C-alpha cells in the first residue's frame, strides 16, 4: 500500500505525463466528461437502432401483407376480366393497377399465354407502355428503372422496343441485363436481332446474354443466327455456334459444319459441340475428321458430341483418343463410351490389355460402371466353361488395377463358390494391396474359402 500511496503522490503539476494529457486536451475532468458524452451517444445510437429495427419489421410485415392482399385482389379482377373482356366495369377495375403493373405481372403468372396476351393488350391500350417508358428513362432510382424495363418485357409492345434498345447500351450493366431480359420476353424478330447484336458489346457477360437469347420467346431464329455467323469477332461466332446448336434445328448443320473449320479454336470447339446438340448422324463425317484437330479443346468437344449423336460406328475412331495427352479429351472419350453402353463393351475388353495404364484403368472403370464386371463375377458360380471364361476376364480386369469391385464382392458375397474363386483370382492377379482382404477371407467359416484365401496369400507372398 505504501507503494500505491507513493504512486498517488506522483500526481503533481511537474509530472511529464500531465503535459501529454494536456496536449491531447484530456485533463482528468474533461476526460471523464468526454467519456460521459461518448456513453450517452452510444446509448442514443442503441435506442435509435432498436426502434429502427422494430419499425422496419412492423412496416415490412405490413407491406408484405398489403402486397399479398393486392395480388389476391388483382387475381380476382383479372379472372373477372378474362371471363368478360369487353365489360367496361372489369376493364375499369384493372385500370387502377396502372401504377402497380408488377402486381398484375405476378398475379398473372399462372395464366395461359393466350390469357396473358389479352391482359397485356388491355394494359397497352390503357397506356401502361408509355408510363413504363417514362419510368425506364427517368426514374431516379436504378432499380425502379430495372423494374420498369422488365415490365416492358412482360408487356411486349412493339412501340416500346426503342427504349429497350437504348437501355441495352446503358453504362450500368444491371440496366443492360434488364433490357436484354425484357427483349428475350418479346416474341419479335426485331427484338431477337437486337439481342444477337448485343453479343458485340464488350461490357456485358456474353454467357449471360446467351442465356437470355436462348430463352427468347421468338422461335424462328436459325436464319437470323446464320445471318450473323460471319461476325469478325471470334467470341461472337462462338456464341452464335452455341445458339445454333441449342435450336436443335437440322437446318443449322451446313453452317455449323463450315464453322467447325473456323480459324479460331474456340469457335471450332463450339461448332463441334453444337453439331452434337443437333443430334444428327449427318454430322458424323465432320466430327470424325475433327477428332484429329490440332487443338485439344476441339477434340474434347468432338468426343462428347459423338456420344450425343449416338453414332457407334465412330467408336473405333474414338479409341485412339484414350491416349490423348490431355485429360479432358480422355475423360470425354470415356464418358462417350459409357454413353454407348453395351456397344462399347467389346472394344473396352480389348483395351484392358492396352499398353497405356490410363487406358487400361478407364476401360476397367467403364466395364465396372456398365455392370459387366459384376455380371462376370456372378458367372463364377455357373458351369465350368462359363466360370473359366469369367476367371480369365476378371484376372485381366484386376491386372488393369480394377481390384476394388473384385475385393468388395469377395468380402460381401454370400456364395461360397464365388468367394473362393474370387480369392483364387486375387492370388493370380498378385497385388499386395489385396492381402488385407485375403487375410479377412482367411478367417471365413467356410473351409473352401479359407483354403483358397490361404493359397492366394502364399502365392502373393511367394511372388514378392
Amino acid at each position: 500500500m505504501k507503494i500505491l500511496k507513493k504512486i498517488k503522490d506522483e500526481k503533481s503539476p511537474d509530472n511529464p505525463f500531465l503535459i501529454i494529457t494536456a496536449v491531447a486536451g484530456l485533463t482528468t475532468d474533461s476526460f471523464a466528461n468526454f467519456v460521459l458524452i461518448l456513453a450517452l451517444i452510444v446509448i442514443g445510437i442503441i435506442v435509435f437502432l432498436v426502434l429502427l429495427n422494430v419499425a422496419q419489421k412492423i412496416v415490412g410485415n405490413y407491406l408484405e401483407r398489403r402486397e399479398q392482399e393486392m395480388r389476391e385482389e388483382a387475381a380476382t379482377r383479372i379472372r373477372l376480366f378474362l371471363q368478360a373482356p369487353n365489360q367496361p366495369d372489369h376493364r375499369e377495375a384493372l385500370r387502377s393497377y396502372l401504377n402497380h403493373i408488377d402486381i398484375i405481372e405476378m398475379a398473372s403468372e399462372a395464366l395461359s399465354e393466350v390469357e396473358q396476351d389479352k391482359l397485356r393488350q388491355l394494359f397497352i391500350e390503357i397506356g401502361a407502355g408509355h408510363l413504363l417508358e417514362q419510368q425506364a428513362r427517368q426514374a431516379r432510382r436504378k432499380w425502379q428503372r430495372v423494374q420498369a424495363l422488365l415490365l416492358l418485357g412482360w408487356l411486349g409492345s412493339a412501340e416500346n422496343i426503342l427504349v429497350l434498345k437504348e437501355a441495352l447500351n446503358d453504362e450500368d450493366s444491371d440496366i443492360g441485363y434488364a433490357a436484354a431480359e425484357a427483349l428475350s420476353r418479346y416474341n419479335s424478330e426485331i427484338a431477337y436481332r437486337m439481342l444477337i447484336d448485343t453479343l458485340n458489346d464488350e461490357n456485358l457477360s456474353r454467357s449471360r446474354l446467351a442465356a437470355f437469347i436462348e430463352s427468347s420467346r421468338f422461335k424462328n431464329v436459325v436464319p437470323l443466327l446464320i445471318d450473323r455467323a460471319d461476325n469478325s469477332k471470334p467470341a461472337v461466332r462462338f456464341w452464335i455456334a452455341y445458339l445454333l446448336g441449342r435450336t436443335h434445328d437440322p437446318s443449322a448443320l451446313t453452317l455449323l459444319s463450315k464453322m467447325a473449320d473456323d480459324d479460331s479454336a474456340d469457335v471450332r470447339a463450339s461448332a463441334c459441340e453444337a453439331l452434337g446438340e443437333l443430334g444428327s448422324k449427318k454430322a458424323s463425317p465432320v466430327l470424325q475428321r475433327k477428332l484429329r484437330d490440332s487443338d485439344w479443346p476441339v477434340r474434347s468437344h468432338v468426343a462428347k458430341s459423338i456420344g450425343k449423336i449416338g453414332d457407334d460406328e465412330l467408336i473405333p475412331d474414338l479409341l485412339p483418343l484414350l491416349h490423348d495427352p490431355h485429360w479432358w479429351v480422355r475423360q470425354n472419350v470415356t464418358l462417350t463410351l459409357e454413353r454407348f453402353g453395351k456397344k462399347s463393351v467389346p472394344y473396352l475388353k480389348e483395351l484392358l490389355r492396352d499398353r497405356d495404364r490410363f487406358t487400361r484403368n478407364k476401360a476397367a472403370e467403364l466395364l465396372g460402371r456398365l455392370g459387366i464386371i459384376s455380371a462376370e463375377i456372378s458367372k463364377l458360380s455357373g458351369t465350368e466353361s462359363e466360370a473359366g471364361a469369367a476367371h480369365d476376364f476378371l484376372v485381366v480386369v484386376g491386372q488393369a488395377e480394377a481390384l476394388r469391385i473384385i475385393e468388395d464382392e469377395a468380402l460381401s458375397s454370400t456364395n461360397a463358390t464365388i468367394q473362393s474363386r474370387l480369392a483364387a483370382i486375387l492370388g493370380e492377379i498378385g497385388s499386395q494391396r489385396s492381402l488385407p482382404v485375403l487375410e479377412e477371407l482367411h478367417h471365413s467359416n467356410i473351409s473352401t474359402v479359407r483354403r483358397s484365401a490361404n493359397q492366394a496369400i502364399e502365392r502373393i507372398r511367394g511372388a514378392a
Partner: protein
Amino acid sequence: MSQLLYILYVFFLIYFLSISFIYILLLFFAFFGSVRRLYEAKFTDFDLLSKSYLTIPVSIIIPAFNEELGVVNAVYSALNSIYPEFEVIVVNDGSTDRTLSILKEEFDLKIEDIFYQRSLPTQRVRSIYRSDKYPNLMLIDKDNGGKADALNAGVNLARYRYIVNTDADSIFHRRGLLRISRIVNTDPGRIVAIGGQLRIGNGLDVEKGKVLYKRLPRQLVAKFQVVEYLGSFLGNRVGWSELNSVLVISGGFGMWRKDVVLELGGFTIETTHEDIEMTFRIHEFFRRRKIPYRILFLPDPIVWTEVPDTWRGIFMQRRRWQRVVNEVAWRFRRMFLNPRYGTTGVIGMFYLVVFESLGPFVELFSYVAVILSYIFGFLSLQLLLLFLVVSFGLTAVIRIASVFIEQYSFRTYPLRSLPRLFLIAFFENLGYHQYILLARFVAFFDFLRRRRTWERIERRGFREEYQRR
C-alpha cells in the same frame, strides 16, 4: 502513475473507438452491398438460371470425419439443391464411427473402380463409391489426413470448373447454389472465389436435408452465436467484399475456381484451417502478378450450420480459430502494410494483425487495467461504469445494426424473435465476449507452441426423423 493510467485509458478508448469505427464503416458497406444484392436477386430470373444450360456446373465437396449424426442430412440437402448440373462428392476422411456405413446404406453406394487424376497429393484413397439412387453422388473413402487433405481428394475427383466446399454438418438452402452462381455467371473469368452467409442451424427441424421449421437455438451459447454470426458474416465480411479484400471464405461454404485451386497446389495441410489460408494465398498470387480477380462474399444465406452449444465446445473452437488467424498473419506477414498487395495488404492485413491477432491482448489488458485501477482507487466508479458502457455499448451497436441489415434484407427471424435478439446483443458483453477473448488469448500460446490439433467438438445433429429411428 495516475497520468500513466490516464494515457492508458486514452489508448484503450482510441483502440475501442477505432475498431468500432472500422466495424461501423464495414457495416455501412455491408448495408449498401446487401441492398444491392437484394435488388439484384429480386430482379433475377431464377427460373431461367435453374434450367439454363449455361449455368456453371459445380462440384460440391463434403469432407466428413466422424460425422454420423449430420452427414446424411448434409448430403440430402446438397442433393436437393435446385440447380441444373452439379455433383456431390463426399469424402470420408478415415472416420472411425459409422459415417461410411450409414452413407452406404442410405444412398445405396456401390464401390466403383474410378481412376481419377491425382493432381494433388493426398493420403491413400481406399475406394470410390457411386450411388445407385443418385448418379451425381460419389464418395471417396480415404485414410485420415485432415480436412484440407480430404478437400484435395475431392478436388482430384471433381469434374467441374467450380468446386464448393462445405461441412458435413451443414444444410444447404435449396436455392443457395443458384444465388451464388447468379453472381459467378456475370464474371466467371475474374471471380475466383465466393462465399455466402452461414446461419446457425441449432434448433432447426430437418428431415432428409429439408428445413421444416426455423427457430432460435435453445442453448444460450448457441443464441449468442446467432447474433455474433450476423455481425461477423453479414456485417464484417460483406463489408470487406465491397473493398475486394475478403479475408476469409469460410470452410462452411465457399465456391472456388478449380483451376486456381490446382494452380496454387490445393488446400494446405500446413495450417490448422485451410479456408483462410487459401483466401490469402489467392490474394497474394493475383495481386503480386497484377492479374485482375475478385473474391466476393454474398449477404445471401446459403447454408445452415451447427455450432458448438457447450461452453467448452465454443472455447475450443474459438481458440482454434484464433490460432489460425495468428498462423495466417505470420505466414503472410510480407503483405502487412505492403502497397503491392493493394487494399488487402494495407487495410486487410493491418486489420488482421492489429485488431484480430493482437486484439485479445489489448482488450483483456484494458479490462484488467480498468478494473484494477478501480480497485486501487485510481478510477472512480462513475468513470469505470462509463468505460464499460462505451465498450459494451459499441459492441451492442454493431450487433444490433447487423440484425437490422438481416431484417431489412432477408427477414429470416419473425417479429417475436427480435426482443430476444436484442437482449442477446446486450448481454453478449456480460461474460460471453470476455470468455471468447480468453479463448483467443490462450490461442496465442498455442500458436507459439505450433500446435496443429483439431479438437473434436461434440455434435448433436439436427432434430429429425433419422435419429429417432
